[in-house]
């Protein structure tokens, strides 16, 4: 009797051809899905750039005016001007307000859900937070327009309830669930041995969170915040309804603003395809793309810097 391994003189154990082919196909499919993300990003960038390029390279286009002028008059009869500074300021302003509100709440909730609350409460909270994430943005816009706007007129000196603070609050409400669920996952991913070690050393729960968990889950928490920022920057419908859609540099929280996204949504449908206005709107799309890219890159570099230390 020979042992089973030696009968085929060292060749791999035979498998049916079909199963082997299926495995190869599966592997290729998964590889393709992995690469597809890159392909899609490049394809989207290419498409937007192709639509915007003719105006970018035309003689009438003034890059300085585009970036640094607040004069946005795309359909003027006497003097067409495409200045987007006020729109950029609107996007940055609303996002900043939203993040100032959402990051403390979101991370706080993530820490509470992951470390401090009991099992039953945790399950309830997670379900409610998921429902919060599932509310469509136009419904948030509706809340902003009717509920928050009225409260704002009654309790602040704002002449109009639709303004930067209103937009920020709505965006914060929309990004908190994302920050909570991803932040909680990041905290959960920290090995329990860290917790046990810290507790064994006599750390309080607070010290455990601040000194051990937050540094250990740093990358995941940053990803949570970044996805929240992404949601806030890219959101269109709710900010269109909540911010008042006024082209101006905001001087206070209660000023109405217009964001790049809302401006594209409001104007692209009516701009004749191929016109300068249409192409400039695509250019503002690129601007938005670059804005989010810079934010992501900066955060990534910051994390690396921290890690090296």
């Amino acid at each position, binding site marked *: 009797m020979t042992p089973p391994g030696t009968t085929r003189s060292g060749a791999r154990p035979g498998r049916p051809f079909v199963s082997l082919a299926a495995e190869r196909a599966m592997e290729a499919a998964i590889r393709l899905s992995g690469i597809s993300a890159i392909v899609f990003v490049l394809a989207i960038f290419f498409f937007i750039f192709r639509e915007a390029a003719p105006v970018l390279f035309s003689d009438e286009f003034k890059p300085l005016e585009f970036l640094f002028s607040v004069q*946005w008059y795309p359909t003027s009869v006497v003097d067409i001007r495409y200045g987007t500074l006020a729109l950029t300021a609107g996007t940055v302003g609303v996002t900043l307000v939203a993040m100032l509100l959402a990051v403390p709440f979101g991370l706080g909730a993530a820490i509470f859900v992951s470390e401090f609350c009991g099992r039953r409460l945790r399950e309830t909270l997670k379900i409610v937070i998921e429902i919060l994430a599932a509310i469509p943005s136009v419904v948030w816009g509706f809340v902003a327009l009717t509920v928050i706007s009225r409260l704002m*007129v009654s309790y602040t000196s704002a*002449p109009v309830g*639709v303004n930067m603070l209103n937009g920020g609050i709505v965006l914060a409400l929309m990004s908190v669930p994302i920050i909570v669920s991803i932040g909680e996952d990041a905290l959960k991913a920290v090995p329990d041995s860290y917790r046990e070690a810290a507790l064994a050393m006599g750390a309080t729960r607070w010290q455990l969170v601040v000194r051990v968990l937050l540094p250990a889950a740093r990358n995941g928490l940053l990803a949570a915040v970044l996805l929240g920022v992404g949601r806030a920057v890219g959101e269109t419908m709710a900010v269109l309804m909540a911010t008042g*859609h*006024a082209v101006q540099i905001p001087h206070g929280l209660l000023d109405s603003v217009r964001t790049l996204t809302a401006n594209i949504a*409001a104007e692209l449908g009516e701009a004749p395809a191929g016109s300068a206005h249409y192409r400039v709107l695509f250019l503002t799309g690129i601007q938005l793309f670059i804005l989010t890219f810079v934010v992501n890159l900066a955060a990534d570099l910051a994390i690396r810097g921290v890690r090296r230390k």
Partner: protein
Amino acid sequence: MTRWPGPPTVRVLLLASLFAAVAAGASCRPKTGGTAIQNKGSDTMVNVAQAWAEAYRLVAPDVNVEVSGGGSGTGIAALTAGTVHIANASRDVKPEEAEQVRRNTGLSPVDHKVGYDALAVYVHPNNPLEAITFETLSGIYREDGPLVRWQQLGFSVPGCRSDEIVRVSRQSSSGTYDFFRERVLNKRDFKLGSRDLNGSKEVVELVGTTPCAIGYSGMGYATAHVKMLKVARRAGEPAYPPTVEATWARAYPIARSLHMYTLGEPAGPVKAYLDWVLSPDGQRILQESGYVPVPPSGEARR
């Protein structure tokens, strides 16, 4: 004999689904022998033109009215080229355009006045203002207009703590925005920082809830929560309230008539369509879209 598969109930079901499929196929098939009326022009009128076309399908199922926008000039150009039956225009045909039409087609454009576009200036009921001139309106809305506080007009509005004149306007692609800019601002640009809303109704709503606000929108959108101002072209001239009568009399200054132009006198289905547009049914649809109907018979055709 063909044998149907399955027990009797299955056969009935099969037969029924076959009938259903045939019936659905019949109703989906495009109408052959129907007439198509091409209708193009004014963006201001495109919504009401669309509403008319849809409602007319119930009146005359074999006539298909195809509506597209592009602007009054585009519509008249298409009429000149002979590619449309009806051109919509929210302004009169210019003499040189009429000449062009005559030279190209040998026929004159014939005007059918189908309604009026009249804008009202709305303020909050708290606002003591009753009448306003073009000059004041322009001072509030124009790019370099000096009026930014109600105090500059000599009063303050109860409930408006900041005293800021909150300008409510429309998004730059709207026909209402265009018309207001042309008629009141004399084609100059709007002051930046106005709240540019996406609908006529939204303007009235925001003005109704904001004591500091002023806004303009179609006359047909008035509600009990806003006040409409009388408008005068110049200081010293009489100010007229935005009423249907004042519009008909051409006294109210922010109004224009809406036209449909045909090549020569219309006949056949085109005439039937225009007659229906001017009928009580057609005019009701116009009114529901926020415009002012033509006066009942007689005084209309001016």
